[in-house]
C-alpha cells in the first residue's frame, strides 16, 4: 500500500476539490439570483427579496404546469417501476438465451440522443393516430425511465437469496404469501427508490415532453416558454431553485433507500450462504 500512497501527487486532492466546485458552482447561481432584487442576474447583488417566490403561486399557467408535471411524474414512475421490476427480476433471477441482448435493448435509451428518440416516437404516435397529450408524454417518459429503474432495482435484487423464498414455500406459505411476507419486505426499499428516481427524471425531463405534448405544458416546458422574456427571468430562477431542491431531496432519499436495499439483501444472503 505504501507504494500506492507514494503515487498520490499533492495536486490530486486539490483537483478533486476544484472539480466539485466546478460541478456545483453553476447550479448555486440559480438560488443566489432568485432572491436578488434586480431582474438581471449580475454582480454586485442588489439586496435580498422573496418577491419572486411570492409571485409564483399567483401564476395560473404555472399552477397548471405543476399539476401536469405531478400527474405525468406519478404515472410514469409507477409504470416504469412496474416494468422495471419485471425486467430486473427476470435478469437477476433467470438465465436464458438472448438475455443480454434484451437487456441491452431495454437500456439503450440511456445512450441514444434524446432528440432522435423523441422524434421517432413522435412519428409512430402520429402514424398510429394517437393525439398528442400528457398521455403520450407519459409513454415517452416510461421508455427513458426504465433503464434507471432497472439499474436501481438490479442492485437491490442482486444477491437476493432464493433459498429464503424456497424455505417459505416449504414451510407451507402460498406463492402470494411468500411474495408478500418474504420477497416484498426485502426489495421494498429498492422499489421505493426506483419510484423516486423515475419521478425525479420525469419531473425534470424536457426534450421528450417538448416533442410529445399537445397543448398542455409540464414544468420544464413552462420554463422553456418563459426563457424568451428577459423580465421573467427572476421568476424562472425562483421556480428553478424549487425544482432543484425537490430533485435534491428526492434523490437523497432514493439513494439512502437504495443502499439500505443493497445492504439488506446482501447481508441476509451472507448469513444463509
Amino acid at each position: 500500500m505504501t507504494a500506492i500512497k507514494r503515487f498520490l501527487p499533492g495536486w490530486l486532492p486539490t483537483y478533486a476539490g476544484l472539480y466539485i466546485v466546478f460541478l456545483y458552482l453553476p447550479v448555486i447561481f440559480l438560488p443566489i439570483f432568485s432572491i436578488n432584487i434586480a431582474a438581471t442576474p449580475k454582480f454586485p447583488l442588489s439586496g435580498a427579496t422573496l418577491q419572486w417566490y411570492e409571485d409564483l403561486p399567483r401564476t395560473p399557467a404555472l399552477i397548471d404546469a405543476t399539476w401536469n408535471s405531478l400527474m405525468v411524474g406519478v404515472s410514469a414512475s409507477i409504470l416504469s417501476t412496474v416494468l422495471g421490476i419485471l425486467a430486473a427480476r427476470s435478469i437477476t433471477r433467470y438465465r436464458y438465451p438472448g438475455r443480454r441482448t434484451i437487456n441491452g435493448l431495454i437500456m439503450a435509451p440511456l445512450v441514444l440522443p434524446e432528440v432522435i428518440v423523441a422524434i421517432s416516437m413522435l412519428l409512430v404516435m402520429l402514424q398510429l393516430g394517437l393525439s398528442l397529450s400528457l398521455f403520450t408524454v407519459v409513454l415517452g417518459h416510461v421508455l427513458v425511465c426504465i433503464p434507471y429503474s432497472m439499474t436501481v432495482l438490479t442492485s437491490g435484487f442482486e444477491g437476493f437469496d432464493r433459498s429464503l423464498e424456497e424455505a417459505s414455500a416449504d414451510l407451507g406459505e402460498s406463492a402470494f404469501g411468500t411474495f408478500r411476507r418474504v420477497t416484498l419486505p426485502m426489495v421494498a426499499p429498492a422499489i421505493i427508490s426506483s419510484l423516486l428516481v423515475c419521478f425525479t427524471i420525469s419531473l425534470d425531463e424536457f426534450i421528450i415532453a417538448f416533442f410529445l405534448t399537445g397543448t398542455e405544458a409540464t414544468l420544464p416546458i413552462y420554463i422553456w416558454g418563459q426563457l424568451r422574456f428577459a423580465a421573467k427571468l427572476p421568476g424562472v430562477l425562483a421556480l428553478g431553485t424549487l425544482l432543484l431542491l425537490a430533485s435534491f431531496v428526492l434523490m437523497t432519499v432514493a439513494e439512502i433507500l437504495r443502499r439500505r436495499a443493497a445492504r439488506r439483501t446482501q447481508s441476509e444472503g451472507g448469513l444463509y450462504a
Partner: protein
Amino acid sequence: MTAAAEGSRPLRMAGARRSPLLQSEAVQGFALISPTFVYALILLVLPILVVIAHSFWTQHYLTIDHTFTLENYRIALTEPIYRDLLWRSLYISLTVSLLTVVLAYPIAYFISFHGGRHKSLWLFLITIPFWTSYLLRVMSWKVILGYNGVLNSGLMGLGIISEPSDALLYNSTAVIITLTHAWATFAILPIFVSLEKVDRTLVEAATDLGDGPLRSFLRVTLPLSAPGVISAALIVMIPTVGDYVTPKLVGGKDGVMIANAIQAQFGKASNWPLGAALSVTTMVIVSLMAGTTVLIIRALQRLAR
C-alpha cells in the same frame, strides 16, 4: 399451498433434472421480461424503423410519397448547411467527450485509490448535480456567460475588464463548456467502476519490480482501466452529438447543431423525410466515430503494455 410446495420442488432437484429445468427457467425468465421487452420494441425499435423508412420517402406538402429515393441523403450529405452542421456537431461531441474523459479520470482515480472510507460519499456528491434538471443547468450557464451575466459583471467588479465581453455566450465554445459540465458525472462513473476492478497487487508488483509511480500508472493502471475510458467516451459522445437544448440556449448562430436542424424539419419546415434522413445520417456517422475511438483506445492500450 400444496401447489406452491409442489412448484418449488424442481428447484431443489436442480442437479438431477438439469435440462428440463433450464428450459422452464428460460421460459419463466423470458415471460417475466416480455412486457418490458415488448414496450421497448413498440416505443424504441418500431419508431427507429419508421424513421429509417421515412428517410427513403418524399414529402409533398401534406402527403408523403412512398416511392424509394436517396434524394434526402443526397441533401443531408451535400447541402452546405447540413454538412456544416453535421461537422460542427461531430467536432463538438468529440471535443466534449475528450474533455470530460480527461477531466474525469483524475477524479475517478482519486476516489477509487484514495477515497478510503468516504468513497460512497464522494460518489454521491458527484452524482447529485447530475440529477438536477438538465434544462436548469444549461440555463445557469446562460446566466453565467451572458452579456449582463455573472462572469462579465464579476470581472468588471474586480476591475479586470472595463466593459462586458460578448465573446462568452452564443458560440460553440459556450456549447462545449456547458456540455462538458453537464456530462461530467456520466464520464466519472464508468472510469471509477473499471478502476475499482484493477488488481492493486499488480500495481504493487510493478513498483516492486522497479517501476516508478508514473511508469506503473502508465503501464498497469491506465491500460487496465481502458474499458472504463471507452464506455465513458461513448456514453458522452453519442448523446451529445444530438443535443438540442444547449445549442438553442447558449449556442447562438455559431453554435447551432444538427439536432436543431432535425427539429426544424419536424416543426416549421415540415419535411419529415429530410428530418428522418438527417437523424439516420447523424446516428450512422456518430457510430462510425465511436467505433474509431474504441479502436484507437484499444491500440493505445496494447502499445502501453
